[in-house]
């Protein structure tokens, strides 16, 4: 079963992702409200995939993706953001982000992307 961690400062998004993915058999093994706490959760839980927001307090999504990339942490990153301009997507891809999805969350897109990375 695919193990997933969600890092997003919005409890609404965390709840929505869980509601979307759990009925499809995906296992949400942890979540965090900022990148710093998220890295701790990744370290402890060792997920296959992390769903990562961009705008967060303390440590944002780009910094988090950069840390994961530079430290070669073995987890695939899906970035999910309300913003999605060309420069942002390019920066994210340079930090090893596998897929970039825009909010509002589209259920089918998220499921298809996770399946493609598994």
């Amino acid at each position: 079963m695919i193990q997933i961690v969600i890092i997003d400062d919005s409890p609404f998004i965390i709840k929505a992702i869980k509601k979307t993915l759990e009925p499809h058999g995906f296992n949400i093994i942890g979540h965090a409200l900022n990148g710093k706490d998220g890295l701790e959760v990744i370290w402890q839980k060792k997920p296959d995939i992390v769903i990562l927001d961009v705008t967060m307090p303390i440590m944002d999504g780009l910094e988090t993706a950069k840390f994961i990339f530079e430290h070669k942490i073995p987890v695939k990153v899906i970035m999910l953001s309300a913003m999605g301009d060309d420069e942002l997507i390019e920066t994210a891809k340079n930090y090893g982000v596998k897929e970039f999805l825009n909010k509002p969350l589209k259920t089918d897109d998220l499921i298809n992307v996770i399946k493609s990375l598994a």
Partner: protein
Amino acid sequence: MKSEKFEYMCKCMIDSFLKIAKEMADLKFNLNNNLDPVFNIKKTAIIVGIVGANPGRIQLETNETMSQTIAEKMNGETLNNPLEVYFSLAEFANIFSGNGLTVINNQFPGSQLRLTPPSIFVGESLELTTPNIEHAKSVLFDGEDLLRIDIGFKGE
């Protein structure tokens, strides 16, 4: 900043608001600046900051009834916990502001406008003022209830 650029940025935000309200909450609003911007006693305000070439902020204000309606439609269920309502409304503001900024950033490459995490304010007779804003526009919408968006940016 030229007024044409500011007007364009406002238009992006307003278009994004209308699109996201329909997409996330199935709500249709009409732009109506002839309304008296008076809200009932308890008001919710969400402020989303903007950093980059043109720093600024988007402020969404609405009343208790409208906050509850938007949040419940987003969640697809009745919400009894006020915190869930505020968090949902904050994400709503974050998403329409972010979608609006995406269009602006692609139109003006190098702007690198980015959002800051939303702040939530709830109170009676709440009035909010943001200093150091050089270009500001307040737009009022009516739909099922009243909602106001205040858009402000600094210069180049």
